[in-house]
C-alpha cells in the first residue's frame, strides 16, 4: 500500500512539489516562530528588567498630595519635591517592620536651606571717598535663555557721614544711602539647597549613598537641640558635590560723579540735600563711573563651601556661615488638562497654573508655579519667639550623585529617582512652532519654578523629626520600598508587590504605588506667561507611567501566543483544505477502486497511511529546522516547545486525513462511470462574453469546490487580518511609552515573519486548489486551445479564477474578521481601521492571483491535443 502511495505521489509530480513546498513552509515557519518567539520573549523580559530598573519597587505617599488626577496612571517627574511631610515616624516603623519589606527608605523634604558664602569684598576697591553704587545681579540660566532673577542696588557713602537717626529709622529709606561699614562691600552669595532628611542606613542599602560620600553619617553625628526657646538645632549635613543649577552672581561697584566735601557738616548738608531731592530715586538719576566688578557662578560658590568646610581651609578668604535658618517650604505644581497640539506624538498635554507668590529675596523679578507653604502649624500658644527654625550645620561630608547606584542611561532613566533633576526639553515655542533642536532645560535656583533641583543637602531622619517637633506635623514625605526576593518582572513578583502595597495601604492608610515595571512616558506641558515673564512654550518631560511594563509584558506574551496560534490555525486550514480537495479530485478514482472490489477499510487505510507519512515528514522537518536554527543562531532552546511543535506538525497532517477517510463512506461505486459535479439549474446573471465571464461561470458552476476554496482562503485571511489588527493595537499600547517603543522595535520582526508565513500558506492553499482545478479541467483547457484560444487568454482565465476566489474570500473574511474584532474589543473604529479593512480584501485577491500563477503556467502547457479524446 505504501508502494501504491509513493507511486501516486510520483505520478502527480507537480502536486507532490506543492505538497512538499507547503510542508516545508509550514515546518520551517513554525520552527522559526517557535525559536524566535522563545528568544524574543526572553529579550523583552531582559530589556524590561535591565533598562527600566527603578531602585525601588513601591513608593508610599500621604493620601491626597498630588494636584493631578492620576486616572491616567501617570506620575509627574520628581513628584517627591512637592510633598513636604505627612507620614509619621510611627507609620514608617510599621512599614519597616513588615516581613516582606527589604528596604524602606524614608525621605523628608524639609525645605530650602540658605547657605551664605562670603566670596570677596569691594573694600580694597574703594580707595577714595565718595558715594558708591553697589549693584547685585542674580542671573539664572535655564538652558534656553538667561534671565535676571534678582537685582538690588544700594548706595554707600564712604566718608565722614554718620547719619543721626533713631534706631527705628533706616538710613537707606531716609537718605537713600548707607554709610560704608566693614561688611558693606562684601560679596555674599546665598546658595540655596533643598534639605532632605533620610535614614542613613536605609539610604545606603537603597542607593549606596555611603559609598558615594566622602564621609558618612556616624553614630556621633546626632542632631541635638541647642536652644529650645529659639528653635535652634545642630544637625549633621551631607552636601551634594553638584549644584544642579547655573546661576551667575554679579557684583558691580560704581562711583557717582559727585565729589564729597571734606567736612562732616558739609557732607551732612549734602546728604540732607539728597534726602530732600528724593533719596535713592534721586541718586539713581546721577551719572556714575564703573570702578570694578566680580562675577561668580554657582560652582564657584560650591567650591568655596567645600574648600572652607570640608577641606577645613582656614586660610581661605571665603567664609561660609554654618548658622542659618530653614528657608522656604515649597508646595506642588498645579496641572490643568490641555489640548495636545500634536496628539499623535504626545497623547497627554497639560498646562501649568501660575501662582501669585513672590520670593522675598527676588521681589518682582521672578515668577512662581508653586506656593510657599506655612512652616509652623497654627497653635493656641503664642510663646514662640518667632517663626524660624535656626540651624547650626555640622557639615560632615559630600556625596557625588553620579556615584550613586541608580540607572544612569539617559535613554532609559525613570524620572522618579531622588537624586537628579527631572528632565525637561523645550520642544515647541509659545506660538506652538517646533524648537529645533529641542533645548534641554535646567533647574533654576528659584524654589517656585516648575523645574526644581534635586535634594542637595541631606540630613538624618532624626534631625527631620526634631525639626518637626518645633514646627508640628509629620516629617516624612514619602517612603521608597524594596521588597525581598523580587528580582524579575514576572507575574509572581507583580502579585507579591500588589499584595504588599495593599497591606501597606490597609495598615497605615497611606497611598502605595508600585513603581517596579513603570516606564517613562512623554508628556507635554505648556508653561504660560507668569508675572510678566513671557511664556516659555511647551516642554516635553518623561513622566512615570505606572505599571506599564507589566502591561507590555502581558500584552506581548498574549501577542506571542496569538501569533503561534494564528500560524498553527492557518497551517491546519491549509492541510485540511488540500487533503479535502485531493479527496474530491480522486473521488472517481476511489469509486473505481471500490468498483473493482476494494473494501472501504482499505481505502480509509490508504488515506490515513498517506497522512501518517506526511505527518512524519512534517515533524522530522520541524525538528531538523529547529536544531539547525538553534545551532546557527544560538537561540533559546525549550525542549517542551521543541517536542510539542514536532508533535503538532504530525497531528495536523494526521487529523487532516481523518475527514477524507470518513468521507470515503459517501462514495458509491457507480460514481466511477458518472461525470463530475455540475449544478444543472443555475441562474445566469450575465452572458459570458469575455474571459472574466468564463472564469466566473466556471467557479459558479462548480459551486461546492469554489465554496471550499473560498472558505479555505478566507479563514487564514480572517485570522491574518485579526492578527494584524491585534498587532496594530499592541503597537498602540506600546507607543504610549518610551519602553513600549523600544519593545515594539524588538517584536516587530517576529510579527512580520508570522504575517509572511501566513500569507505564503494562504497563497499555497490557493495554488493547490487551483492546481487541482486545472488538472480536472485538462480536457476543457485543451479544447479552448483547439478552438483557437491563445496562451495568454488561458493564463488570464486561470488567474482571474484565483482572483475571484480571492475576492469572495476577501468579502467573507472582512465580515468574519469584523465580527471577531467586535466580539473581542466591542467596538470598531472605522476611521483608524480603514487600512485594516482594505487588508482582508487586498490580501486574498493578491494571494489568489499569485497562487494561480503556477497553475496558470500548467494550464498554458496543456497541449490542445490532450483533452480532445478520452
Amino acid at each position, binding site marked *: 500500500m505504501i508502494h501504491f502511495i509513493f507511486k501516486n505521489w510520483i505520478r502527480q509530480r507537480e502536486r507532490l512539489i506543492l505538497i512538499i513546498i507547503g510542508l516545508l513552509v509550514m515546518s520551517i515557519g513554525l520552527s522559526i516562530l517557535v525559536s524566535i518567539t522563545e528568544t524574543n520573549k526572553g529579550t523583552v523580559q531582559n530589556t524590561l528588567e535591565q533598562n527600566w530598573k527603578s531602585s525601588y519597587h513601591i513608593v508610599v505617599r500621604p493620601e491626597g498630595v498630588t494636584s493631578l488626577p492620576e486616572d491616567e496612571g501617570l506620575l509627574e517627574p520628581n513628584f517627591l519635591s512637592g510633598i513636604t511631610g505627612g507620614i509619621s515616624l510611627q507609620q514608617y516603623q510599621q512599614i519597616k517592620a513588615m516581613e516582606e519589606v527589604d528596604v524602606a527608605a524614608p525621605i523628608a523634604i524639609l525645605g530650602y536651606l540658605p547657605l551664605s558664602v562670603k566670596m570677596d569684598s569691594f573694600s580694597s576697591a574703594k580707595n577714595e571717598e565718595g558715594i558708591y553704587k553697589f549693584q547685585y545681579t542674580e542671573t539664572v540660566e535655564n538652558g534656553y535663555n538667561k534671565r535676571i532673577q534678582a537685582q538690588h542696588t544700594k548706595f554707600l557713602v564712604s566718608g565722614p557721614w554718620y547719619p543721626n537717626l533713631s534706631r527705628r529709622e533706616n538710613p537707606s529709606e531716609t537718605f537713600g544711602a548707607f554709610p560704608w561699614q566693614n561688611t558693606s562691600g562684601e560679596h555674599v552669595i546665598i546658595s540655596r539647597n533643598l534639605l532632605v532628611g533620610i535614614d542613613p542606613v536605609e539610604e545606603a542599602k537603597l542607593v549606596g549613598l555611603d559609598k558615594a560620600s566622602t564621609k558618612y553619617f556616624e553614630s556621633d553625628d546626632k542632631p541635638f537641640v541647642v536652644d529650645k526657646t529659639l528653635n535652634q538645632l545642630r544637625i549633621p549635613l551631607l552636601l551634594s558635590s553638584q549644584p544642579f543649577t547655573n546661576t551667575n552672581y554679579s557684583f558691580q561697584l560704581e562711583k557717582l560723579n559727585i565729589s564729597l566735601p571734606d567736612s562732616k557738616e558739609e557732607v551732612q548738608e549734602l546728604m540732607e540735600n539728597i534726602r530732600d531731592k528724593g533719596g535713592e530715586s534721586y541718586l539713581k538719576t546721577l551719572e556714575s563711573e564703573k570702578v570694578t566688578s566680580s562675577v561668580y557662578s554657582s560652582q564657584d560658590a560650591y567650591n568655596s563651601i567645600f574648600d572652607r568646610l570640608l577641606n577645613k581651609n582656614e586660610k581661605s578668604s571665603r567664609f561660609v556661615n554654618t548658622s542659618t535658618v530653614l528657608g522656604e517650604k515649597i508646595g506642588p505644581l498645579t496641572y490643568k488638562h490641555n489640548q495636545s497640539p500634536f496628539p499623535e506624538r504626545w497623547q497627554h498635554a497639560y498646562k501649568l497654573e501660575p501662582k501669585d507668590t513672590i520670593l522675598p529675596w527676588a521681589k518682582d523679578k521672578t515668577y512662581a508655579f508653586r506656593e510657599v507653604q506655612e512652616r509652623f502649624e497654627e497653635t493656641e500658644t503664642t510663646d514662640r519667639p518667632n517663626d524660624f527654625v535656626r540651624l547650626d550645620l555640622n557639615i560632615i561630608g559630600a556625596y557625588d550623585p553620579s556615584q550613586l547606584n541608580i540607572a544612569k542611561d539617559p535613554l532609559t532613566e525613570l524620572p522618579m529617582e531622588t537624586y537628579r533633576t527631572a528632565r525637561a526639553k523645550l520642544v515647541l515655542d509659545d506660538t506652538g512652532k517646533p524648537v529645533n533642536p529641542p533645548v534641554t532645560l535646567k533647574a533654576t535656583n528659584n524654589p517656585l519654578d516648575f523645574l526644581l533641583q534635586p535634594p542637595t543637602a541631606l540630613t538624618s531622619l532624626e534631625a527631620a523629626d526634631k525639626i518637626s517637633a518645633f514646627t508640628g506635623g509629620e516629617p516624612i514625605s514619602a517612603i521608597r520600598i524594596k521588597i525581598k526576593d523580587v528580582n524579575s518582572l514576572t507575574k509572581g513578583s507583580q502579585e507579591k508587590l500588589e499584595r504588599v502595597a495593599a497591606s501597606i495601604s490597609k495598615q497605615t492608610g497611606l497611598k502605595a504605588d508600585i513603581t517596579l515595571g513603570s516606564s517613562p512616558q512623554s508628556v507635554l506641558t505648556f508653561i504660560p506667561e507668569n508675572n510678566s515673564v513671557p511664556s516659555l512654550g511647551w516642554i516635553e518631560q518623561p513622566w512615570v507611567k505606572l505599571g506599564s511594563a507589566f502591561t507590555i509584558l502581558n500584552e506581548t506574551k498574549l501577542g506571542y501566543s496569538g501569533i503561534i496560534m494564528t500560524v498553527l490555525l492557518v497551517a491546519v486550514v491549509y492541510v485540511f483544505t488540500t487533503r479535502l480537495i485531493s479527496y474530491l479530485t480522486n473521488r472517481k478514482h476511489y469509486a473505481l477502486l471500490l468498483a473493482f472490489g476494494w473494501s472501504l477499510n482499505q481505502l480509509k487505510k490508504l488515506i490515513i497511511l498517506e497522512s501518517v507519512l506526511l505527518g512524519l515528514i512534517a515533524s522530522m522537518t520541524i525538528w531538523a529546522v529547529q536544531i539547525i536554527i538553534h545551532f546557527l543562531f544560538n537561540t533559546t532552546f525549550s525542549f517542551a516547545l521543541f517536542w510539542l511543535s514536532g508533535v503538532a506538525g504530525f497531528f495536523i497532517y494526521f487529523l487532516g486525513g481523518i475527514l477524507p477517510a470518513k468521507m470515503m463512506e459517501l462514495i458509491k461505486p457507480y460514481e466511477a462511470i458518472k*461525470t*463530475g459535479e*455540475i449544478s*444543472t439549474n*443555475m441562474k*445566469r446573471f450575465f*452572458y*459570458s*462574453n*469575455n*474571459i472574466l*465571464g*468564463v472564469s466566473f*461561470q*466556471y467557479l*459558479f*458552476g*462548480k459551486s461546492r469546490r469554489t465554496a471550499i476554496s473560498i472558505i479555505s482562503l478566507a479563514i487564514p485571511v480572517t485570522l491574518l487580518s485579526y492578527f494584524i489588527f491585534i498587532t496594530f493595537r499592541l503597537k498602540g499600547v506600546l507607543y504610549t511609552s518610551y519602553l513600549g517603543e523600544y519593545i515594539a522595535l524588538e517584536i516587530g520582526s517576529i510579527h512580520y515573519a508570522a504575517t509572511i508565513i501566513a500569507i505564503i500558506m494562504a497563497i499555497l492553499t490557493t495554488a493547490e486548489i487551483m492546481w487541482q482545478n486545472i488538472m480536472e479541467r485538462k*480536457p*476543457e483547457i485543451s*479544447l*479552448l*486551445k*483547439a*478552438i*483557437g*484560444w*491563445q*496562451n*495568454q*487568454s488561458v493564463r*488570464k482565465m486561470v488567474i482571474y479564477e484565483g482572483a475571484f476566489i480571492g475576492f469572495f474570500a476577501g468579502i467573507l473574511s472582512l465580515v468574519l474578521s469584523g465580527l471577531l474584532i467586535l466580539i473581542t474589543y466591542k467596538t470598531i473604529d472605522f476611521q483608524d481601521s480603514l487600512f485594516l479593512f482594505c487588508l482582508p480584501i487586498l490580501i486574498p485577491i493578491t494571494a489568489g492571483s499569485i497562487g494561480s500563477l503556477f497553475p496558470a503556467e500548467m494550464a498554458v502547457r496543456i*497541449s*490542445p*491535443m490532450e*483533452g*480532445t*479524446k*478520452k
Partner: protein
Amino acid sequence: MANHILLKNIEKHFNNNFNNALVLKNINLLIEEGDFVSIVGPSGSGKSTLLSIIGTLEKPSNGSVIFNEEDISGLNHKKLSDFRFHNIGFVFQQFNLLPTLTSIENVILPTISRRVNFKIYERAKTLLKKMGLEDKLDSLPSQLSGGQQQRVALARAIVNEPAWILADEPTGNLDSKTSMDMFLLLRNLNEEKNCGVIFVTHDRTLAQMSNRIIEINDGEVISDHHGKKL
C-alpha cells in the same frame, strides 16, 4: 487554388522510454478547397493523429503541413492559435462543451478575447436556430441530449466561418438516426458555405457518402478513392 491542404512526407512517432512508436509514416496528401473527406481505419491506426496534425493540434515529427502555400508546421504557439481560430473548426466525439457554460456561451467561446467584425450573439443565435436549437439557447450541456450537444459543438466550430471543419468521430457517441442528421448538417455546410470538411469515422456507411475516402492502417494510407455522391 486557395485554401487547400498539402501534407508532405508526414511522419509522427511518440517517444517513450522503452520504444519508439511510429504512428504515422510517409503521408502525402493534397486536400482541395471545399472538399468533403472522410478518414477511416481501425482503432489505433493513426487517423485521429492525422486529423490533429492537419488541425495543428500536434506537430509532425517529420514532414510539413502546407496550408494555402504556407508551411504551418513551423509556426509558434500564438500564430498557430490564430491560424486555428481563422481557419479550423473542431468537432469532437465527446462534444467537449464547457459544462458550466450555456449553449450560446459555448458557441461564442472561440471569439472570446478576440476582435471579430460580426455581431457574435446574433451569429450564434442564427447558427443555433439553424441547428434547430432556438429553444435551447440558455440551456447547459447537461440539459441537452447527445445530438443536441453535438449540434452546439458544430455551431461553435463554424461560428467564425472557418475554411475547414475537422470532425473527430463526431457521430461516435450518437445513435444512427442522429448520426445521419449530424452528417447531413455537415454535408449542408459543405455545400452552402463551401466549407471543407475532414471527418474521421468508424462508420463506413457515412464514409461512403463523402466525396473522398482515405483509409489508413498502421499509420499508412492504404487507399484513397471517391465515395458515392449523394
